[in-house]
């Protein structure tokens, strides 16, 4: 399986996050803090991770997951779990 390009990763994760947070992708992209600006809580974090992990067939590190608070951080974590970006 080829690794997804960074731009694909970013677009896909932004879409998954927008669905989970019931908002639009622009807001997901502009948010510096999912918790502070979009109201991410443990349940929505669990659901988002569920969606991301299913999408890419990966399991993210739980400690790292607990600290994720923005699209950039989430994309970076997924990229690392995939072993680097194409």
């Amino acid at each position: 399986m080829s690794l997804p390009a960074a731009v694909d990763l970013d677009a896909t994760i932004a879409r998954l996050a927008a669905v989970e947070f019931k908002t639009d992708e622009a807001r997901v992209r502009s948010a510096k803090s999912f918790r502070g600006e979009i109201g991410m809580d443990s349940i929505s974090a669990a659901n988002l991770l569920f969606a991301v992990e299913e999408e890419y067939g990966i399991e993210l590190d739980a400690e790292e997951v607990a600290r994720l608070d923005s699209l950039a951080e989430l994309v970076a974590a997924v990229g690392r779990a995939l072993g680097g970006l194409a």
Partner: protein
Amino acid sequence: MSTPGPGPGPLATVAGALLAARVRSIAGSVEVLGAAGARSRIEEARASFPGRKLVLFYWIEDVLPMMVADVHAGGLLDAGAGEIRFACDDSLGGRVAESLLSRLGRRTLLLRWRRPAERIRDLQRILRSKEPMGIAVDGHGPYGRVGDAFPRMVESAGACAVPVAVVADRATRVRARALLAVPRRGARIAVAVGPPIVGDAASGGAAPFQSALEAARDAAARDALGAAACGASGSLARW
């Protein structure tokens, strides 16, 4: 069987063992009202929403009367629903409940709330699983109020949530780490199960869950205490 994490610890283990012994010792002396009706309402909910995760929800105060009635009736809440897993958090009170339930042969489900990473993983596990579960929705206080997280959990899991109230006419209320009602020997214990609330309808927040549970408690109180002893919703807080 419990999942996952270490055991309850010595203090919780001892407290759970003492409570389990108390539950067993009085279970034979109590009268249980409404057990058959409770079972059939749970079966109806299950049949009405096939494929959805069944979540029984109740106040923390009802756990001990529920366990006494469960031992008395030989599986009060399981009929038609498979074996319920009872959620217990990782507070001392939750660990005591885990120890108690395990000793009574019930399966538990550990929810580790203290550390965010573990909380997210445990929530993921719950949301994915289709196993029926039971959960006290006011376990962290304030007591008698449905917490904000529960409706979100029901909605996310697309679950079928069923309110359950179990009330004893004579009980000792103990406010230790959690609010407990310990039924007395010879107590009359009534069980009431309300109509289900499905996950799709859970986006309205805590209000429908609060109302459903209060109504179920009033119904159980009417049966246990007699109509004259019970008034409006929430009356049980005064007994």
